[in-house]
């Protein structure tokens, strides 16, 4: 017998790990549930339920499925400027009207939707040092359907301390807006009693609707990723991604106000955006484990051919306590430059541009989130958590001179929201 070789112990230990490997990864289902409330002051309220199930099978194969249901109610800014007088708008369907009071951000309060999203993902080792993952995702809401597929190939190097991955995804979305798709930059028809009858109004409204053209969009994403374990405490990750979207990218419910020299809105035009968008993003993350805390910090840079660029810095610091609980403060700072065709309003007399949008989401803005999460792991392995966050978004002046009365009105309103989430893992 090989008396002098401590290699024997090594070989034996390696063999015993193989013996048990088939058992140790065959786990029961893991369930992850969460319920989240998102509420903007006087605007959108959302309630979201998430149910996720994951099963790790033999040989490191893994299956997971996720169901997300959310329901949105409330009002959202329609893009029109505030006015010193009350304003009347036609609802997207054309069947009704809504108003904005003096010096009030015009809000479309017909906003109400329920979204159901189901996704499934399968991952497994492919050959030695390779892992492959594929998935599909279906999402449905009243005026929007989406189906997407993805595939990721990962390659381990350097004793699995380095992982390089290439991911591809393709999404096909179809949009069926309430009231149809408006003709880009056509003028909103508002019934102020000028029509002789209902049919005359209808025909004027219908003239602002598109009859043909693109009614969906498709998205291709490519992601290159690199994960590097630096040591037992420290892990870093880097991603570069490219995204190409083609199709109907306009928000059918948003308008841009056209104002005269006195700052008065003379008409509302439906916004219009380009039919394609190319986006690049870079992401870097570092996660460091101290004796009894974990620090996670990340940075994201994005840039697209609409002219929007953004910077996000996000950090979480988790304090781990002896009783298996933790407290995790969270901060996120976000800064975004506006799209080339973003404008808070159009000027009467100027040529109508090809593309224009006053949607604050593609405007210049700064946002921050402050939050805290408390979580506790129970002895049974179950885990619960509570998260409370405050979000503030401040739209920024893009340097367009405000004529007349617009000067004294808030062209770049801000938005506050709170997020409350409970989650439970079992």
């Amino acid at each position, binding site marked *: *017998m090989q008396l002098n070789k401590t290699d*024997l*112990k090594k070989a034996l*230990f390696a063999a015993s790990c193989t013996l*048990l490997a088939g058992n140790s990864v065959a786990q029961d289902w893991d369930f992850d549930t969460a319920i989240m409330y998102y509420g903007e002051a006087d605007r959108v309220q959302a309630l979201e339920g998430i149910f996720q199930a994951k099963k790790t099978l033999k040989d490191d194969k893994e299956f997971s499925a996720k169901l997300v249901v959310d329901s949105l109610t409330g009002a959202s800014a329609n893009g029109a400027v505030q006015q010193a007088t009350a304003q009347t708008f036609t609802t997207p369907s054309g069947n009704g009207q809504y108003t904005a009071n003096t010096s009030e951000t015009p809000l479309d309060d017909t906003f109400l939707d329920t979204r159901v999203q189901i996704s499934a993902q399968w991952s497994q080792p492919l050959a030695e040092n390779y892992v492959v993952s594929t998935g599909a995702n279906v999402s449905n809401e009243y005026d929007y359907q989406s189906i997407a597929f993805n595939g990721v190939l990962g390659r381990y190097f350097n004793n699995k301390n380095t992982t390089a991955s290439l991911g591809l995804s393709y999404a096909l979305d179809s949009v069926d807006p309430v009231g149809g798709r408006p003709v880009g930059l056509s003028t909103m028809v508002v019934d102020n009693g000028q029509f002789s009858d209902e049919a005359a109004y209808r025909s004027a409204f219908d003239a602002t609707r598109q009859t043909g053209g693109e009614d969906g969009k498709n998205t291709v994403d490519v992601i290159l990723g690199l994960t590097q374990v630096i040591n037992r405490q420290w892990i870093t990750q880097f991603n570069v991604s490219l995204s190409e979207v083609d199709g109907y990218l306009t928000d059918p419910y948003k308008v841009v106000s056209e104002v005269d020299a006195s700052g008065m809105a003379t008409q509302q035009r439906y916004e219009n955006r380009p039919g394609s968008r190319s986006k690049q993003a870079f992401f870097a993350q570092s996660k460091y484990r101290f004796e009894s805390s974990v620090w996670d910090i990340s940075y994201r840079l994005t840039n697209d051919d609409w002219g929007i660029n953004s910077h996000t810095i996000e950090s979480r610091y988790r304090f781990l306590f002896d009783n298996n609980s933790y407290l995790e403060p969270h901060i996120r700072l976000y800064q975004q430059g506006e799209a080339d065709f973003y404008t808070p309003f159009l000027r009467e007399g100027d040529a109508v541009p090809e593309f224009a949008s006053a949607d604050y989401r593609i405007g210049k803005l700064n946002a921050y989130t402050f939050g805290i999460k408390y979580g506790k*792991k129970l*002895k049974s392995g179950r885990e619960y958590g509570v998260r409370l966050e405050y979000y503030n978004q401040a739209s920024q002046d893009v340097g367009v001179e405000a004529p007349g009365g617009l000067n004294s009105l808030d062209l770049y309103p801000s938005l506050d929201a709170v997020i409350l989430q409970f989650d439970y893992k079992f």
Partner: protein
Amino acid sequence: MATLAQQHYELSGHDSYISARFQAMASPCEFLFDTLDKSLADSLAQKGVAQARRIEQKFSRYAKDNLCFAINNAEGASVKIDDECYRLLAFAQTCFELSDGMFDLTSGVLRRAWKFDCSSHIPQQRQIDALLPLVGWEKVTFDQHSIQMKPGMEIDFGGIGKEYAVSAIADIYRIHAPDMSVLINLGGDIQITKPRQHKLPWRVGIENHEHVISIVQGALATSGDAKRFILRDGKRYSHILNPKTGWPVANAPSSVTTHAPLCVQAGCLATLSLLNGKDAERFLQNQDVKYWCTRV
């Protein structure tokens, strides 16, 4: 404060832990849970006892309707096996190679000639010679899906089955109670899932050892049996048989206990050391493992 549940284990509360005692694999067994939550300990005990019984039923050579019986009674035919059985066979293969053919799951048939009942009966050489053709792991062919061996040959998973069960149960507890220390003890083969709270050691009594052993983490396994031997003409024959000669290994310790991270590792090291006979201690020293040897 003892309850007898359906799975036939006895749950008892102690000052800082809860124990579940039961009988399996012809041995007294127990789980010690580092908790005072009785319902949690109960649900964990059920899972562990079920796993012990599952492995016992599947691999015991005493059962008549299990995989082990099918393999041992195939009369030369190929028998389909599952992944778990394949992993055990592959592990046995490694042990066979590492021990230069001394660790052999087919050597059990020699017990038809040797009865280690503390008597002085020694079999005739011709009896042993008749059995030797049925011994030899190299005569077994297996792959991930099937196993085949000569008619009359037998596999005895007893050499690794109990230690495997201990480690497999520990894996279950690592998943279901990742934050709790659990001690698994199947007839003296022991593994701890993680250290206890407040750095308390687990204290266990082991057969053949006078003292109670304190163990913080890792596993302990014992090979050999001080009560199973043949004494003849002043010479003591241990029950560890050399599969090449069919005779007991000379000058082996009566029992060896070793400490290793996993029970399957500790068990194998203990058995391999016994197979080294008079060099058992030297073997263990060379492997740099903590051990306790008993020589009677």
